[in-house]
């Protein structure tokens, strides 16, 4: 068993367990903390895929910025404990869980029966080169310059929108 395999199974098991715990835990704060762990282990999985840049951005943006925002809002609002996790219409809940399981097995069937043979993967040197910051940055500044600039504009618009929406007097 190579180190790569061990690391994959280590991070993948953390990822799967915490994603279930996010949905199942009753307290929103615990859900948020498990989500942070989920994002961190996902960054580890990105490293096993040779995507160093995406892994670092995942830790900084997702586990850092977005989850801090979530935790701030949870602590600001202090939402009351839900009476039970699966409150509301119980038949509807069972139906949705059944639909989820059905979709999962459908996905597994498509993945296994599909023709995406993993034997066609490219050489290791090219896989490592693909995830490098230099390579991604050059592509971002040349061929994908317009999406890059629009993302900057979108973030500015979102910042202004968030400020306006959460203002105290809303007229």
């Amino acid at each position, binding site marked *: 068993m190579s180190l790569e*395999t061990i690391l994959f199974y280590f991070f993948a098991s953390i990822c*799967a367990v915490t*994603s*279930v715990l*996010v*949905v199942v835990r009753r307290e*929103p704060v615990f*859900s*948020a903390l498990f989500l942070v762990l*989920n*994002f961190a282990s*996902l960054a580890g999985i*990105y490293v*096993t*895929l*040779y995507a160093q*840049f*995406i892994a670092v*951005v995942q830790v900084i*943006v*997702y586990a850092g910025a*977005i989850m801090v*925002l*979530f935790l701030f*809002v949870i602590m*600001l*609002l202090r*939402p009351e404990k839900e009476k039970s*996790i699966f*409150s509301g219409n119980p038949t509807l*809940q069972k139906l*949705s869980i059944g*639909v*989820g*399981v059905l*979709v*999962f097995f459908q*996905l597994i069937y498509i*993945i*296994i029966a599909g023709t*995406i043979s*993993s034997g066609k*993967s490219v050489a290791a040197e090219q*896989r490592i080169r*693909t*995830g490098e910051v230099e*390579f991604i940055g050059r*592509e*971002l500044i040349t061929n994908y310059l317009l*999406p890059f600039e629009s*993302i900057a504009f*979108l*973030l500015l*618009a*979102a*910042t202004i929108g*968030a*400020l306006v*929406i*959460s203002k105290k007097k809303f007229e």
Partner: protein
Amino acid sequence: MVTLEHYLILSGFMFVTGVVGVLTRRNAIVVFMSIELMLNSANLTFVAYSSFLGNVIGQLFVFFVMAVAAAEAAVGLAILIAIYRNKATLNIDEINILKW
């Protein structure tokens, strides 16, 4: 040997967990977190294909998805704060003004 299918199955599992979370939970913040879970499973699929095919475009798209998710989280949480200020609840069964 870890193949592409391993990553895709993990991604599918995370996506289905997010779907079940959106459908079953009644707390708006937890519903938001389930949406983030689904976005991340899509990101994992992008990165897995990008790495196994040696093509950088998938990782660029993950970068864009992350920026859009950050914008979505900021605006969405601002909306939640505004709702809480007006109705003092985050239970999505009680926030039903737009329900037909």
